């Protein structure tokens, strides 16, 4: 018998009076002890499956068709009390944001204890023992001390381990994990996935693993279901789906991920983005057809039926035989291992940054070294990657380069001028030569300015601001450089999609054509197809504008695709630097090796 079975599950949202299907006729079966990966980009409806199971659909959303059965009981028809008995016991959840899922004002011990009390363990000592056993099973050291800690005293990875321990504490028969590693560091990500897999095996639990990362799903899951625009477009055993994808979307997702293999390959560029709910309501035929590289007229006529290929492997595509013919177009070359130019644009010598922590009554002030002895250069037109875990000092180094904070010691030479001190002159040099692209476009764009005003903001600074007409002209030119329509010029950031916002973010930095861009994790929050578009855009813009870039990222495959040289940072120090290929082929430092091994293997 299957643990979870969905039959034609349909979820509909009411948006200003119109009913829009968010999930359409999703069917799958999950056997006991199996792992189902639900994969798709944002807007695909993958989280709706988890929410439908938890009965936590957003207001205005409702299950309008089909059934969702847990061990033969229809979850959609359960009474309130019956559902309460199932959820958190037989079915448990691992959330996306570990920090926000724990109560900040209660200790881990108290929260764990409450959870176990809910499960019906009466005796206090028994609960304590069980909590300790579960925490050590989650490979948390010193579980005794952990029980007295508060969530903010733990790292994100530790919080997630605690939540995993809690999720498995009830010996559930089904666990739903919704993007459990998205908020975590790459190195921790691998450990967490491993832990989930191990706990799943120990408890013989069925697992629904919701993720946007096809590689991660491939690593972990027995079966994969690929979602697009609310519909399951392909379903099958992981090996079959990845070695012979039948739906073009699966194939495109595969090709949009930068490869980790040494020779590298071009990224597949999936045009545009997933249709929004409003657009979906107006579409007919195959929802993927407008972006599909092999679509024909026939695809637009009616929604393709589900076609079986092999036992348990099906896809919603009428021409699956052409899917494998999709290959990445020979796009712009990524990393160009050029000769080391004579003069470097940025030279950093012996740079240090120390912070002094505030003195308390009994504790004397302590010194923290955020950056130690950093030494590197960036040549004109060169893309340099800066990798390391969070807290390794990457962002502090960027702040020092941008003059947002003064260094404690060392020298920064920018375009032949010493800009170590944050003097007025150094500031003028910096404004002309170095700009930054921020990580989070939501926070990086002033919500009260229109796009045209944001991208030409540099022309507003200084004593002689540019005239309005001039700015609008420049804004239109920049938008077309970014591959965006000029219509966006008069919109506000809130009216743009994530990918568009990130392009605006890049456009603003390029307005006055700086010589160096500092890009802090600019693709980490984006879907793979949007990420591939942005990476390609950066390479194209380099040809046009001739700028160098310091590309800060934790994603090694992206760095490998984009950068010709890499700096590896670990605890404030640059432990290794050199040409990308050399470092990735023969990592010298132990930390570089750890970072490389954390990348999910290519399938």
């Amino acid at each position, binding site marked *: 018998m299957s643990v979870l079975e969905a039959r034609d599950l349909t979820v509909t949202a009411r948006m200003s009076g119109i009913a829009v299907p968010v999930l359409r006729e999703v069917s799958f079966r999950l056997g006991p002890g199996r792992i189902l990966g639900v994969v798709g980009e944002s807007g695909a409806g993958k989280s709706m499956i988890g929410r439908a199971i938890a009965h936590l659909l957003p207001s205005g959303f409702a299950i309008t068709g089909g059934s969702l059965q847990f061990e033969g009981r229809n979850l959609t028809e359960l009474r309130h009390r019956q559902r309460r008995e199932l959820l958190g016991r037989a079915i448990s959840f691992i959330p996306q944001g570990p920090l926000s899922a724990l109560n900040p004002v209660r200790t881990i011990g108290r929260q764990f204890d409450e959870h176990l009390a809910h499960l019906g363990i009466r005796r206090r000592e028994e609960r304590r023992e069980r909590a300790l056993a579960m925490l050590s099973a989650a490979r948390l050291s010193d579980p005794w001390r952990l029980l007295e800690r508060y969530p903010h005293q733990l790292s994100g990875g530790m919080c997630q381990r605690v939540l995993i321990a809690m999720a498995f504490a009830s010996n559930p028969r089904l666990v739903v994990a919704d993007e459990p590693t998205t908020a975590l560091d790459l190195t921790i990500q691998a450990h967490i996935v491993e832990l989930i897999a191990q706990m799943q095996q120990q408890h013989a639990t069925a697992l629904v693993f919701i993720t946007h990362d096809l590689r991660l799903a491939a690593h972990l899951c027995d079966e994969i279901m690929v979602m697009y625009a609310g519909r399951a477009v392909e379903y099958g055993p992981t090996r079959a789906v990845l070695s012979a994808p039948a739906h073009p979307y699966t194939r495109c997702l595969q090709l949009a991920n930068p490869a980790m293999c040494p020779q590298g390959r071009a990224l597949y560029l999936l045009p545009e983005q997933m249709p929004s709910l409003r657009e979906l309501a107006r579409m007919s035929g195959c929802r993927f057809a407008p972006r599909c590289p092999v679509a024909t007229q026939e695809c637009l006529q009616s929604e393709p039926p589900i076609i079986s290929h092999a036992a348990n492997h099906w896809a919603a595509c009428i021409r699956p035989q052409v899917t494998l013919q999709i290959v990445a177009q020979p796009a712009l070359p990524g990393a160009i291992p050029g000769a080391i130019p004579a003069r470097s644009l940025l030279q950093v010598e012996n740079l240090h940054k120390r912070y002094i922590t505030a003195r308390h009554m009994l504790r004397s002030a302590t010194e923290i070294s955020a950056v130690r002895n950093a030494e590197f250069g960036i040549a004109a037109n060169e893309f340099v990657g800066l990798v390391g875990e969070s807290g390794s000092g990457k962002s502090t180094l960027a702040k020092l380069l*941008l003059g*947002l904070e003064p260094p404690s010691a060392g020298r920064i030479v920018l375009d032949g001028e010493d800009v170590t001190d944050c003097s007025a002159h150094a500031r003028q040099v*910096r*404004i002309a030569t*170095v*700009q*930054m692209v*921020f*990580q*989070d476009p939501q*926070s*990086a*764009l*002033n919500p*009260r300015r229109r796009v045209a005003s944001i991208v030409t*903001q*540099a022309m*507003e*600074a*200084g004593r002689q601001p540019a005239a309005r007409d001039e700015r609008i002209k420049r804004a239109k030119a920049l938008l077309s450089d970014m591959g965006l329509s000029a219509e966006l010029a008069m919109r506000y950031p809130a009216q743009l999609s994530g990918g568009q916002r990130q392009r605006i973010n890049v456009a*603003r930095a390029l*307005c006055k054509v700086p010589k160096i861009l500092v890009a802090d994790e600019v693709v980490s929050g984006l879907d793979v197809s949007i990420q591939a578009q942005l990476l390609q855009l950066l390479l194209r813009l380099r040809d046009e504008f001739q700028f160098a870039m310091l590309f800060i990222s934790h994603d090694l495959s992206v760095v490998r695709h984009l950068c010709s040289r890499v700096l590896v940072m670990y605890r404030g120090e640059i432990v290794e630097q050199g040409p990308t290929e050399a470092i990735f082929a023969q990592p010298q430092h132990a930390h570089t090796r750890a970072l490389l091994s954390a990348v999910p293997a290519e399938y």
Partner: protein
Amino acid sequence: MSPAVSATLRSGRVVIGLGLVLFLGMCALLAPLIAPHDPAEQNLLSILLPPAWSPDGNQEFPFGTDSLGRCILSRLIYGARTAMVVAIVASLGAMLLGSILGHVCGYFGGIVDWVVGRAVDVWMSFPPVILSLVLMVGLGTGLDKVIMAIILVDWTRFCRVLRSEVLVVTQRDYVTAARLLGFTHWQTITREILPATLPLLITLLSLEMAVAVVVEAILSFVGLGVRADEAAWGQMIADARQYIYQSPWNLLFPMFAIIIAVSAFNLLGDGLRRAFDVRLAQLAR
């Protein structure tokens, strides 16, 4: 008109609040035209008259007269003048002083923030009414002195609230971006931060107006407010106190006036807060 502004104007609280405020403002502006009598004119032959609609009332004095035979309606209308001038000038003054310091503290931080922050702490440790009474004793009476006292007491409210808002906005990447693009500190504050704090500023301002009306009434009530020959609601209450049993109307009319003015400003402020507050807006959707 932008959609945000028109949505704000459609909310019930804002419409009622703004309507009442405009009504009081018109009374204050047009006082010489609409008041039936001079507010200081005494009719010693007709003192303590009840309102016109009671059996003993006189059509000449719609709301009756006080112990000196002055027309209550006229005094109420002229009192609105005092109240509105104090409400607007004093709260604008407190807002200017407080928000400038709040922006400077929140944006620059450091020693300036520390000094101003401690000054605000010390300032706020005095009960506001006592502080304003002490100030009035020092400054003397008069409309300008009342305004001065309110500004000196209430700037701290703006300073503290805006400082924390500015701290939050300053953390946004777009503020850093503006600096990197070459904006001066002045440009950054006025073009990037102020537009974000403005909704809060407007909301605080309208709430402060309500406070100013109350403070002015208190000061006039204890005789430390406006001069005796100027009409003020607090003063009317003080005068009517002695004749509370003979003619309760004398006491009730200025009290209603104060209640209406204060609730008008509060409704307006609350409505604006709801309209501007993103978190509440998301809940409603």
